[in-house]
């Protein structure tokens, strides 16, 4: 009878706990990361009586947390991947729209520039048409500047996001460590009774951490969880949290590296939004800046070079339209000394752009590797492949021409073995480009030479208008022929001494043409050949920097003269040569025009964005699946809880009834003896 009372009581207590558990489930149904709990009822051990074993009621043996460690881990990994891809797509999409934008992108700027140049070449003497060319050059260069600023701003944004991401990692890590401490310090946790809600909290924090960066976990003593990042760098070890921080890169200015303690772990960081941000910076933002720079260098260098071959409206030889790409400061700014170099501030190295068509979008690393302190190797930054090697000469300044379209200029040989420099020939060129020309009259649309056929000629020979090739010799010194402004030194006379032989004479005094020094007499003319009359090899002493050809059948005594193109305001030959850059392959080994290079950048970013979106969708599907699988096990179903509620309520009522019956029985006995 007393036993019956106890049995009823145990039922009341047990089912009250079960109802409480159900209530807990119902109220936490919407909590992210909550795992449903279940009161495990078991039969109390029976008591031995004379009649055998007699039951003694029910007891709650455990409040079980329904969770599957495998699914939790899976969800965590998929979350990392999804966060990685989402951030990557976010960054890419910005670039994708920016570059294709008609207003901000480069295509329209290039088109407008060449249209203006075309109009200028149609009417080379019009100052208004020239002004338009100058204005469009300015627009083009400010478009480069604006694009660079926008893309560079994205790099700054990425750095800000990295910094706040790292702060969050530290906050989460110390949260996990605290929970580790609490959980392992709790009494009873050793006996198999788990602090369910704390475990949920810890899993939630680890999942949040995985959203920032991909993590691995191990469980220690069944109680504490250790968390690792990358290749096993510990961020939570028992009750201690490691500290992650961003540090400015030693090698790449403006790039942030991730460190745990003192160790740089950037290259090991994969996945999560931090991984995505770093990938976007490395794979997209920086190469985009390089490509923009490559195009900017191409435009500036090619047009300046062509400009130098012409003469302007006032008969002076052409000056730079765009700011010189090889100014000393700009050359220096392309070289970044590693912060750990032995000799601090020793950056007397310049990178000069030689041939934009050979230029790549790569960055390079110059390392002084020994054995002598002047020995260096030049490697590509992307894959560390060897470009060239050499040694800085003792006689300064020294320079080294590479096959990558640039040369290295050393103003110092004060280097140490182990010194390292990052070379970025193209990185900031889109920001550096600017207009050097102020007056439209200075646009050199004309060429400095013109040719003339003598009216006394008897044969049918004709002379071409001539093509300018260079105003500088191979060593960079000005060629004598055009060294004096406003004249050809000397004016030349081509005279045929027979039908197949000619001589080139100094025509300074038309009354008395004299031999050139060295003399160029007795040259052979072959009708039907290209008729070029000057040597094409710049090393030849007779090289003039221009080429003129004679065709047809000249006769003995026929004369052709070549003179300075004074007053040639109607000449547009040099403008036509500039126009050729619209479609001519000026970049990428001479195969791609400026706009093709830009189109390729556009297509590349577009394709990467497209691919990243597909990856993002795939990882979204995966994260959805593992979320569904986890929720299917651990999530709360309210209908189920409602049914449990009814079940336990009924059982509770029934247990109360048992107590009531026990009381009745007791009453009956009392009544019998009264």
């Amino acid at each position, binding site marked *: 009878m007393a036993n019956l009372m106890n049995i009823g009581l145990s039922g009341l207590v047990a089912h009250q706990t079960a109802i409480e558990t159900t209530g807990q489930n119902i109220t936490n149904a*919407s909590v*992210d990361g909550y795992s*449903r709990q279940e009161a495990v009822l078991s039969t109390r051990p029976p008591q031995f009586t004379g009649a055998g074993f007699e039951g003694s009621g029910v007891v709650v043996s455990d409040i079980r947390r329904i969770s599957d460690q495998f699914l939790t881990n899976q969800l965590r990994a998929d979350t990392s991947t999804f966060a990685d891809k989402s951030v990557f797509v976010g960054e890419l999409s910005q670039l*994708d*729209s920016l*570059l*294709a934008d008609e207003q901000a992108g480069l*295509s329209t700027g290039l*088109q407008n520039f*060449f*249209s203006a140049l*075309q109009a200028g*070449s149609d*009417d080379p*003497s*019009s100052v208004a048409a020239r002004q338009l060319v100058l204005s469009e050059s300015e627009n083009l260069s400010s478009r480069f500047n604006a694009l660079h600023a926008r893309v560079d701003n994205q790099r700054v944004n990425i750095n800000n996001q990295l910094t706040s991401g790292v702060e969050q990692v530290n906050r989460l890590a110390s949260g996990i460590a605290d929970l580790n401490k609490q959980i392992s310090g709790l009494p009873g946790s050793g006996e198999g009774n788990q602090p369910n809600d704390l475990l949920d909290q810890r899993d939630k924090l680890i999942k949040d951490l995985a959203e920032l960066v991909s993590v691995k976990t191990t469980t220690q003593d069944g109680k504490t969880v250790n968390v690792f990042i990358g290749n096993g760098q510990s961020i939570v070890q028992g009750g201690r949290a490691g500290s992650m921080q961003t540090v400015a890169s030693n090698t790449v200015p403006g790039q942030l590296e991730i460190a745990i303690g003192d160790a740089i772990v950037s290259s090991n960081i994969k996945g999560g939004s931090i991984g995505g941000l770093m990938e976007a910076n490395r794979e997209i933002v920086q190469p985009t800046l390089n490509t923009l720079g490559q195009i900017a260098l191409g435009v500036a260098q090619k047009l300046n070079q062509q400009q130098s071959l012409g003469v302007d409206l006032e008969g002076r030889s052409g000056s730079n339209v765009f700011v010189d790409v090889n100014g000393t400061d700009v050359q220096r700014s392309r070289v970044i000394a590693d912060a750990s170099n032995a000799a601090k501030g020793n950056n007397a190295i310049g990178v000069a752009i030689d041939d934009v068509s050979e230029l790549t979008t790569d960055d390079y690393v110059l390392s002084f590797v020994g054995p002598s302190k002047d020995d260096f190797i030049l490697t590509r930054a992307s894959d560390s492949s060897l470009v060239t090697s050499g040694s800085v000469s003792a006689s300064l300044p020294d320079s080294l021409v590479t096959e990558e379209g640039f040369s290295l200029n050393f103003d110092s040989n004060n280097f140490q073995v182990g010194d390292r420099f990052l070379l970025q020939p193209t990185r900031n060129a889109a920001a550096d480009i600017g207009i050097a020309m102020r007056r439209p009259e200075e646009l050199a649309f*004309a060429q400095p030479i*013109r040719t*003339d*056929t003598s*009216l*006394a000629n008897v044969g049918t020979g004709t002379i071409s*208008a001539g093509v300018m090739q260079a105003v500088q010799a191979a060593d960079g010194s000005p060629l004598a022929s055009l060294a004096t402004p406003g004249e050809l030194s000397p004016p030349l006379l081509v005279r045929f001494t027979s039908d197949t032989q000619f001589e080139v004479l100094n025509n300074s*005094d038309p*009354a008395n043409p004299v031999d050139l020094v060295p003399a160029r007499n007795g040259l052979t003319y072959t009708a039907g050949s290209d008729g070029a009359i000057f040597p094409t090899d710049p090393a030849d002493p007779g090289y003039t920097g221009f080429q003129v050809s004679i065709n047809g059948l000249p006769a003995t*005594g026929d004369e052709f003269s070549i003179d300075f*193109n*004074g*007053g*040639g*305001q*109607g*000449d*547009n030959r040099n403008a*036509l040569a500039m126009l050729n850059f619209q*479609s001519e392959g000026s970049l990428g080994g001479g195969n791609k025009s400026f*706009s093709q290079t830009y*189109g390729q950048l*556009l*297509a590349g*970013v*577009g*394709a*990467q*964005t*497209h691919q990243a*979106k597909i990856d993002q969708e795939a990882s979204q599907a995966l994260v*959805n699946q593992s*979320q*569904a699988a986890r*929720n*299917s*096990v651990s*999530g*709360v*179903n*309210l*209908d189920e809880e*409602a049914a449990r509620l*009814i079940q336990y309520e009924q059982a509770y009522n029934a247990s109360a009834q048992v107590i009531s019956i026990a009381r009745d029985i007791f009453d009956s006995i009392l009544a019998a003896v009264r």
Partner: protein
Amino acid sequence: MRFSNIQAFSQNLQGSNRLQAENSHTQQQIASGRRVLTPSDDPIAATRIVQVQEELALNEQYQKNINSVNNHLAAEEQQIETATNTLIRIRELTIQAGDGALNFENRKTIATELRQNLDHLVSVANSRNADGDYIFAGYQSAQQPFVQTADGNVSYSGDEGQRFVKVSATTTLAVNDGGKALFMDVASANNTFTTQSHPANSAQPPAIISAGAVLDQAAYDSFYPEDLRVEFNDPPTTFNIVQKSDGATVLASQPYASGEDIEVAGLQFSVSGAPAAGDKFFVESSAKQSLFKTVGDLITGLETLDDSIAANEPRQKLLAASLDNLDNAHESLLKVRTSIGARMNVADSTAAMHEDLELISQQVLSEERDLDYAEAISRLSFQSFVLEAAQQSFARVSNLSLFNFLR
């Protein structure tokens, strides 16, 4: 599989998010009329679009250039036609001057009309285009190319330069012709010569040399093609005439008088002004004679050869040679005109090619970039239908709960 309520809600949230994004994308496509909104929508098409747009822009530029070529050439042709008409009138007058019934006075009248025509020719040769540039000056378009001196000599100070305009990726067309080819480079019936001052002459004001004339054709023919040089001695009261090729002296220490005729090797010319010591003048043989000199010589002849019998033969010779030279000049004009016509033909056929290409490019652009509205609108209605269905069904299903029955 067990089902949890939190999953139901998050699934619905994701589903309607996705559907709304799809809806909005389709809506943007419809609003802009474009299938490809950003390059990532279809990277391959995006690349093509950029290429085709560039081709179109270039094509448009070339068509503009062809217009400009046609305008320039039409203006030039117009001037050459005027010159040709004047030339024809001059030829008529030349034939008329050969009429034996005319006397000296009649021929002088004809000479007067010839002079007007000559002035007209010079003004045509100095005509300018709409931009104010001299059409026939070559590169030196800002400077008047044909200058008439007091004695009627017309010299050319332009050059042979031609301005080219690009009309397709591979074709450039010249939009002007030097006046030299038109008016100066004209085959002459007889061997003739041109005179010129040395650019380094130091006299101020410079002494000038007249155009001169061939006095004795037979004597000159035997001297031809040697060139002569007139060199003033120090003091410049005498001059020498030397042969240019070998420097051999032809006439030595001739006394100088301004404007007095100098006769050498069948030629006659004069130097006037005050030449300085060392000044030089060139007399260069040529098989060419400018149109202006032909007409100028004719005028001088008609004005000087009178009715005497002695003047009869030189006049007949002059008229015959003038007619030949005028025909040659006509041919020079015609040659340039033919070349202009050929260039205009090339311009026209290139323009037709560009129009064809433009049509094709537009078609490609439209296929790659433009939206198929029928498809897009039916897609939009289907997407909205799915979204509505998802919303309604979720509202329905989320109402089902056992708790509704616990009262």
